[in-house]
């Protein structure tokens, strides 16, 4: 018995979230071999570095599916390659990273095999049924669940399982050419529209995020939020109440149905702290809330708080920062 992990590559290596998926896969494998699947167009080569990294994370064999369709992202083709490989390996489980693409590919595998899929797991124990703990409500709640049938299909929630090295020597590399029908190849990325608003700090990667909610009162209320974000070299965020009012674009929204952020500090001004908002900032190392209401729910998730009107507090922080920098 083995566990098969569908890995995603990034330029020059293996995506960090795939390494996290490997860590959970090892707990599921209990010593059985870990097999990895990567896809590539025939012209390309999977670097030796990838096999070395995967070996350091416990992979015994890297199976490389080669096909022209893998020149761009093609979810059903990846899933079909995994299904074909699984027919040969008969793994006890197939695991992917809980990225948009990992969830998509695993769902296609689940549909093809007519098996359940547990998305965004943080723990898993093998068995029949397998027992998993997974995120629901964008991570506001956990569910313990039994997954019936074999192989067990699951994805691993991002940033909640630590990627750890488990050296198994360099992974062996085996190439295969999956048999893909026209239908398997129909859905693929055919074009890329570059973002022309590039530049500035992206919300998802910012070290500092300053955001506001209904408490900002108006689109103009964000002037002082932008000012503080600029001073700190950070990005501006907002709550859904703000995007619904049309004060800011949805790209600024933090939360379950917005952007997930992981800054060193998140400064949330005039935001009540609804569970769906907090689902987007669980990755923040420190949360500072500015709120007029000492009973606001966000105070139960924040590390620090200032009680007061953001229209007074935020400009005062900016002024104090400028003062501190002059001396």
């Amino acid at each position, binding site marked *: 018995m083995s566990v098969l992990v569908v890995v995603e590559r990034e330029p020059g290596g293996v995506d960090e979230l795939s390494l996290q998926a490997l860590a959970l896969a090892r707990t599921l494998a209990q010593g059985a071999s870990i097999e990895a699947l990567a896809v590539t167009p025939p012209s390309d080569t999977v670097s030796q570095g990838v096999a070395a990294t995967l070996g350091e994370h416990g992979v015994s064999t890297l199976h490389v599916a080669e096909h022209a369709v893998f020149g761009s*992202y093609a*979810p059903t083709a990846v899933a079909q390659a995994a299904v074909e490989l699984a027919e040969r390996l008969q793994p006890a489980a197939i695991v992917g990273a809980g990225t*948009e693409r990992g969830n*998509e590919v695993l*769902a296609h595998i*689940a*549909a093809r095999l007519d*098996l*359940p*899929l547990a*998305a*965004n797991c943080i723990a898993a124990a093998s068995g029949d*049924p397998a027992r998993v703990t997974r995120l*629901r*409500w964008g*991570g*506001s*709640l*956990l*569910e*313990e669940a*039994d*997954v*019936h049938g074999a192989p067990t299909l699951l994805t691993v929630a991002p940033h909640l399982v630590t990627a750890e090295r488990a050296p198994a020597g360099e992974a062996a590399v085996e190439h295969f050419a999956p048999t893909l029908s026209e*239908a398997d190849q129909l*859905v693929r*990325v*055919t*074009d*890329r*529209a*570059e*973002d022309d608003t590039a530049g500035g700090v992206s919300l998802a990667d910012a070290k500092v995020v300053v955001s506001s909610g209904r408490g900002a009162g108006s689109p103009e209320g964000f002037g002082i939020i932008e000012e503080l974000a600029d001073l*700190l070299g950070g990005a501006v965020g907002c709550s859904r109440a703000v995007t619904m009012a049309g004060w800011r674009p*949805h*790209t600024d*929204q933090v939360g*379950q*149905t917005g952007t997930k952020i992981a800054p*060193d*500090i998140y400064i949330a001004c005039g935001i009540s*702290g609804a569970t769906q908002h907090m689902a987007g900032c669980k990755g923040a190392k420190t*949360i500072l*809330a500015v709120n007029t209401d000492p009973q606001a*729910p*966000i*105070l*139960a998730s924040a590390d*620090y*708080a*200032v*009680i*007061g009107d953001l229209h*007074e507090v935020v400009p*005062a*922080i900016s*002024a*104090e*920062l400028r003062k*501190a920098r002059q001396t």
Partner: protein
Amino acid sequence: MNVLVCVKRVPMTGGKIVLTADEQAIATQHLGFTISPHEECGVEEAVRIVEQHGGESVVLTLGPPEAEEQLRDAMALGMDRAIHLVIGDDEDWDAQATATAILDAIEAEHAAGVDFDLIFFGNESADSGGYQVGIRVAHALERPIATGLKGVAVEAGRVRCEQEVPGGRDVFDLPLPAVVTVKEGLNFPRYPSVPGRMRAQKKPIASSSPTAAPARLEKVRLVSPPGERKEAEILGHGPDAAPKVVELLQRIGVA
């Protein structure tokens, strides 16, 4: 163009989630209900497509009798009619069973002469977050599916799909009939008008009661994530707290 949108009724939790004593569900006595913002955008897009291309827009839910509220809400925004797959109040169907029931409903429509050119799902449901019901339905129908979309444009028998990725947008171009799963940010949903609400009361809902298959992703219990509740350290009140905040920013190394 006939367009179907699948939506799921979920409780609108506020600042804190309270579980029922048996740990099987969220205590909802004091909560309102809604659908995922992703699905709201699916409803808006379907209404716009039918406004532009003609045809019929249909909203479907598998949910308790009370989920009629969410169907009426969608019809108030312009959906033409609804399909209600009625289940018990405390039933929590897994993704496989849900997809099968939706598929049966689509096949019943087909038998009655209605075929959907485009079917909308949310990228993930608000409560379960399974990322899979749409993909299962598309696979069973042998139709192409693109997921997580923030752009959907129907033209000449095809649908151009845009997915947000770091640095830009990836484009998928699918022939119709097709299935799409969408995300909030796809469009800016309209608010229901009073006449819209009145009209929605008269629009037809076809109800039926599917039978549940045993869950294969079987919930054992729900738990709150550990280490959730703490008390924030109050740095001060009003603008006078600014020096303390700057100290904190310096300590963290971001000032």
